[in-house]
Structures are given as C-alpha cells and as structure tokens.
C-alpha cells in the first residue's frame, strides 16, 4: 500500500503537522482512560484531593480491585458480558454478511425494498420496542437468560451491518464469483471462501461499531436479565454506585478491568483491517 507521507517526499513540515494533530487527538482521547487507570489504584482520599496526580507510594491502594474481585460475582459478570458480546458479534457478522451478499448478488423482486427494510433499523432505536421485546421474552421463557440478550443485540446490530456490508459486497468482483461458479463452487463456498475474505476490512469495521454499544449496554441487561447469574459487567458494577455513597475505588477498578476485553477485541479486528487488504485478485 502506498503511504501518502512517503510519496510526498521531503514534505517534512506537513508530515510533522499531521503527526502533531494526530498525537494531540490521541492524548485528548486517551486522557480520560488514563485518569480512570491511575485513580483506580489510589486511596479514596487521594482520588478526591488530587484526581490528576499519579499514584505515589503513599497514595497507592489496590482496595478497589480487592473489593471488585471479592464482592459480587465479578468474574461471572465478566464472563456473561464476554459471552453476550462475542455471540452477538458472531451472529451480527454472519447474518449481516449473508444478507448483504444476497442483496448485492442476486436479482430478485423486491431486492431494493428488502434492502431499505433491513436498513430501517438504523434510524429507529430498538429501545422503543422494549416493552414488546420484554413481552416476547416472557412468553418465550427467555427472561434472565443470556440468550435473550444475544437475540436483542443481534437484532440491534444487524441493520448497520447489512447496510455497510452490502455496499462492500457489491464491490466484490463479479468475474471472480463467476469464475468460481464455473469451477463448480457452491454459492455457500463462494460466500465463505471468496466474498467474506475480500470484505474482511469492512467486517472489522462493523465488528468494532457493533461491539462497543453491546459491551457498554445497561438498558437491556437491567430489563431482560437482571438476575444474579446473568448480570453483565456494566449492570454488575452498578452495585458500587449508591444513591448516597459511591465506592469510587471499586467503580474505577471495575471500569479499568472492563476496558481490557474491548481493547483486546479491538486489536484483533484492527489487525484484520490491515491484513484484509487483499490484492491480486482482480486487475
């Protein structure tokens, strides 16, 4: 891949300016995270006295992490969040890509309408349907199960996934798919072995956009799965936020821990973003 900075050789000033802006933005974006991390290992008093200070030998106190790990079923919450997020992500990407492939590849009556219908969900927040969703889950006996959350999040993530992916699916070379048809590959093989790898960068983008709201959601866990066994991390952390007293050490520690899976997943996807740039297929 050609790098705009190396091609504009000798243009050091512009490179420096661009980097300065990017670095400034990075600092700005990461500073709150940094604050959470440093304050999570400080004494309660130190947090309030000087929230911007780094922890010193005197102010260092891992009490927050102790509370979090001892109180509540933190590991269980963590596991619940991870299961819900990964499972929803898997279904959103799988079904989203399949729908996108069908919309982009096959000419059928109502193709355009179907595409619009599937994209409608982008504009209508799924929370509007909370009452109906709850009724359905009650009727299906899925209240207080992780399944209910996975189902809701899959529905929530699909519209954007279909919308973005169908645009990319359209760019997969027709000749390539036709060559595969002549070689006798089934439509499923064409989808999985040819189309999917070529839209991997788009899949990674969709994954990132889908993952964050699911991981952070408080609404549906609170309504559909508030039971102790199915609490997610975000919901579980709420016990530290009281109406009168808030255990800031614990809250900050819980937040710090909650950041890591997201970062790990993000790193995986961002590597895909780069690796997915396949060339040599066509032209």
């Amino acid at each position, binding site marked *: 891949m050609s790098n705009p900075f190396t091609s504009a050789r000798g243009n050091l000033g512009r490179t420096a300016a661009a980097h300065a802006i990017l670095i400034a933005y990075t600092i700005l974006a990461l500073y709150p995270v940094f604050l959470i991390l440093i304050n999570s290992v400080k004494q309660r008093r130190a947090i309030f006295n000087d929230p911007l200070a780094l922890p010193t030998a005197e102010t260092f106190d891992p009490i927050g992490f102790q509370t979090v790990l001892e109180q509540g079923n933190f590991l269980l919450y963590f596991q619940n969040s991870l299961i819900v997020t990964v499972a929803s992500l898997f279904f959103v990407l799988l079904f989203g890509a399949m729908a996108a492939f069908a919309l982009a590849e096959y000419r059928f009556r109502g193709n355009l309408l179907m595409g619009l219908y599937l994209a409608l969900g982008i504009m209508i927040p799924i929370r509007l349907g909370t009452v109906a969703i709850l009724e359905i889950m009650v009727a299906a006996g899925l209240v207080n199960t992780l399944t209910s959350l996975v189902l809701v999040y899959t529905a929530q993530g699909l519209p954007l996934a279909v919308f973005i992916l169908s645009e990319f699916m359209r760019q997969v*070379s027709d*000749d*390539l798919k*036709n*060559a595969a048809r*002549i*070689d006798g590959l089934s439509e499923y093989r064409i989808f999985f072995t040819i189309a999917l790898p070529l839209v991997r960068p788009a899949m990674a983008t969709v994954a990132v956009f889908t993952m964050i709201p699911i991981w952070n959601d408080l609404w549906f866990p609170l309504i559909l799965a508030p039971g102790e066994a199915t609490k997610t991390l975000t919901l579980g952390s709420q016990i530290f936020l009281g109406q009168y007293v808030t255990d800031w050490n614990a809250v900050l520690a819980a937040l710090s821990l909650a950041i890591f899976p997201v970062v790990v997943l993000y790193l995986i996807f961002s590597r895909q973003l780069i690796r997915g740039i396949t060339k040599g*297929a*066509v032209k």
Partner: protein
Amino acid sequence: MGQLKLENACKSFGSVDVIRDVNLEVQDGEFCVFVGPSGCGKSTLLRMIAGLEDITSGDILIDGQLVNTTPPSQREIAMVFQSYALYPHLNVRDNMGLGLKQAGQPKAEIATAVDRAAGMLDLQNYLTRRPGELSGGQRQRVAIGRAIVRKPKLFLFDEPLSNLDAALRVQTRIEIANLHRELGATMIYVTHDQVEAMTLADRIVVLRDGRIEQVGAPMELYNNPANEFVAGFIGSPKMNFLNAGALGAAGKSVGIRPEHIQLATEGDGIAGRVSHVEHLGGETLVYVKADPHGLVTVRLFGEHSYAVNDQVIMRPDMARAFYFDDNGQRLHPAPA
C-alpha cells in the same frame, strides 16, 4: 468435441432486450470471435453460453445437447475474464486445479494436468506464488492455464488481453493462437481489438444491439461486408463513407477503405484540403477535408510529406468501392 449451437437465443433484463434472436453455429475446433461496439451484448452472450446468465428464450446446445438449464460447472466450458478473476487466497497451482478438485478428480491427475498447463504457459516457476505476487501478464496466463486444466469443450474468452500493455498483448495473442493450434479446441473470443479479431479468428461474428449483423471469415467481412455497419466496423482505420450523390452514384453512400485511395496534387479526382497528417513510419495517414464528404482518411504506405492545408486530389479505386442504400444495406450488384 466442442460444438456450439444457438437457436433464437434471446435475453432481456427486465424490459430491456439485450440479446435478440441470435442464431449461430460454431463448429468443433473453430476459433470464433465476437466483435461489436461497447454495450452491444457480447459479454452477455458469452455469459449465456457459459450459463452465468439464464437464457430468456431460445436454446443453447453444446455438442447437440440442450444446456439451457445446466449449471456452468457442468457445461464443460472454461472462461477467461478480462479482470483475471484469480482466487486471491490460493496459490497458482491451487487456482488452476480448483475446478478439477471440485469435480472430484484424484490428486495425482490434477497435479499432472496443472503441470502440463504450466509447461505450456511457462508458469512452472510460479506455481507456489499467490496471484498478488504475479505481474499482470503472468496473472492472465494463470487464468488461461486454469481454463486449459479443465479440458473444456469450449473455451470462452472475454476481452482477455485488454488489461495488458501493448507489447504483452501481442505476445499473449500469439500464445493464444498457438494454444488453439496445439489443443485444437473450440474457442469463442470477445474483443474490441480489430487486430485480435482479424488475426485470431476463423470466423468473426459482428454484433450490434444484440443482433448478429454478419458472420464470416475475416477476409470475407473485409472484402464483402453485408452492410454499412459491418463495413465501418471491420478494418482500421475505419472505412470512409462518401456522399453517393456527389459522385454520381446510386444509393446513399459509397464506402471506400483508406488504403484504397491514392493522393495526387493535380488532375482528376475529389479535391480536398489536408486537415491533419499522422506519420507512423511504415505508413502515413492523411486526413483530408472534402465537401460534401466530410473528413476522409487516406492511408499511404511509406513516408509522405503532405502538410496541413495542402490542396490535394483524392483518387479512390472505384473497383473496390462498396455501395449502400438508405438503410445502410449493400447494393448488389454495384450500380453502374
């Protein structure tokens, strides 16, 4: 064996008729070239033969067997695309062998077939590379190799050389011609390129708006075009169409090829003014403006020193002229 027959083949996309009532027979071992202006339906017709597009009405027969509803992989055809269309995740060997693998051929047989094809195309040293690690010419050879490996009844080429640079195009064109001789296979080839069509074809099919205008050997089309469209389409530079009335001939226009006009500075003939000259070394193209004929192209062999704005006299070889009526149809016999 590899014989193709199209009977009243039609194709519509919605209400748009793209292929209209095409009847064509391609004999075993024949090299058949489809030419026509952009959008006339060449690729669509090829894809219909391959089975990648359904046929709206009519019949397609390969070796006498009706294949209207046979899926592409079972028509025993192979196709080479303009965009190479190699599988990016497979190396050259697997790219070429995938068709046979899908057909359930034993590994050893696939390897032999791939090695043989690679040998024919000088690809032995690249078998473990991915398409991304090959040059454009090598990629197109891999695509051709992938077609050979399948031992198809019909080879279908859709503008396989248009992505290559001029030198490589000549070389690959010769390779395809050699391949046709060696394999003796039936080939159907779509191109925009005059030279490719004239040099490769046993028979050329000229299409316009989804209809066949004329079918014939290259020289037959050159020497005996059925109508104004074919006359103008075959041959490069394009045939001149002179005003028949001004020449005292019947019909609407008189077609005369650029190579069949002599230039002089005085005497009888069509007077005109040089508006542009192109020196190509071996030949010189002189564009002459002459009322009421418009711009007339004259192709002279060797070097000539005409300059813009020179007054010249054109002397067409009227024995080689073609006469067309108001509908663009040839007038037979040529009016006296």
